[in-house]
């Protein structure tokens, strides 16, 4: 019996699948008619192919659907969480600048314009209280206060608006600033906390549904 070559095997296999050209098919069919061994090999290969094609199909032993965690899906961020996060960040940035700048603009007396007009008369008093030794030369010493008092009186007399602004209503230095900083910190904490809670809820809902 003539031994089949690897090329013969390839030709037979391709013939089974209809992958030979018409000319090559005719040539092989002529050989098959003359070579029983070739025909027998072809039959065996066809049987093998049939066995494989009829091999039982295995079903998946479980479901392979992906959970959001497996798929790496992130929960969509609720719009309110974005705004809260933005507000918290703004508050923190503002707080940073306030701290770096030595206090809120609120350190300045927050009052109506006429008060600011009267301020120059009062400012020296503050500066006296907080003056350093370096400034002491330029600022009138405390003992000169009585001398300044008549001037103040004159000015107050000339400006009726100043009369309506008692000096006792003027904020203490840093009082407004401290209050503002506390407010900013509170806003940052609340907005940041709200953002975290909203994101966490969205995340939990996504994974609960998955």
């Amino acid at each position, binding site marked *: 019996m003539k031994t089949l070559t*690897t090329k013969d095997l*390839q030709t037979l296999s*391709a013939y*089974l699948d209809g992958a030979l050209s018409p000319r090559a098919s005719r040539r092989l069919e002529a050989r098959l008619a003359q070579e029983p061994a070739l025909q027998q090999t*072809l039959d065996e290969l066809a049987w093998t192919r049939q*066995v494989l094609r009829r091999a039982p199909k295995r*079903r998946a032993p*479980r479901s*392979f659907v992906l959970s959001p965690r497996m798929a790496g899906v992130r929960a969509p961020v609720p719009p309110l969480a974005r705004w809260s996060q933005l507000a918290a960040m703004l508050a923190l940035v503002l707080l940073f600048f306030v701290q770096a700048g030595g206090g809120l603009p609120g350190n300045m007396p927050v009052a109506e314009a006429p008060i600011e007009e009267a301020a120059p008369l009062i400012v020296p008093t503050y500066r006296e209280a907080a003056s350093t030794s370096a400034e002491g030369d330029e600022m009138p010493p405390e003992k000169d206060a009585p001398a300044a008092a008549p001037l103040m009186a004159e000015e107050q007399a000339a400006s009726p608006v100043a009369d309506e602004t008692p000096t006792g209503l003027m904020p203490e230095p840093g009082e407004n600033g401290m209050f503002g900083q506390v407010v900013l910190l509170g806003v940052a904490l609340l907005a940041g906390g709200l953002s975290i809670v909203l994101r966490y809820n969205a995340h939990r809902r996504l994974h609960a549904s998955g």
Partner: protein
Amino acid sequence: MEEARLIHQAQQGGLDAFNQLVLHYQDQVYNLAWRILGDPDAAADVTQDTFIAAFRKIGGFRGGSFCAWLLRIATNRCYDELRRQKRRPVRPLETEDDDEKDAPRRWLADSAPSVEAQVASRQLDAAIQRCLDALPEHFRLAAVLIDIEGLSYQQAARLLKKPLGTIRSRLARARARLRDCLQQVRELFPDDFRLPDVTS
């Protein structure tokens, strides 16, 4: 199943749409992995990895056969797993026969009505798998993809990134070896497995 619509939705990040595709193809992907690896646990792991990778890569899917695209990912994962097994060979505690005896019946999609037919089907399944396991890796892949999964030569060539001639050659040699192996257990096969007429 509107596959194109589901693919489009999955490409937009729709996990529900993608999971419908998973349900549709999971048997085929698992069957391919099981036939190549010969181990149900490894096949399940590869199947899961395949779908995770497919979801992450689906944005790059440019049309064509989605099934072939999935099978390509699965085949690559099987290659990785085979390489891993070569580095760290694992010997199962139970024998193949035990494994087959304990295998759940739901794994056999074509469950036969009679007990005899079921037994025959399981014996056939076990014999085929043993013969496939005995093949070199490249031959096994060609036989599984073309003769078991029903891919064309062209699809298998694209999937394995090999020339058509290489695929033909590997398939022919795989069939010849499988013929020798399966003929040794021919008595296990049901009566309707007769030598067929030569047709294309």
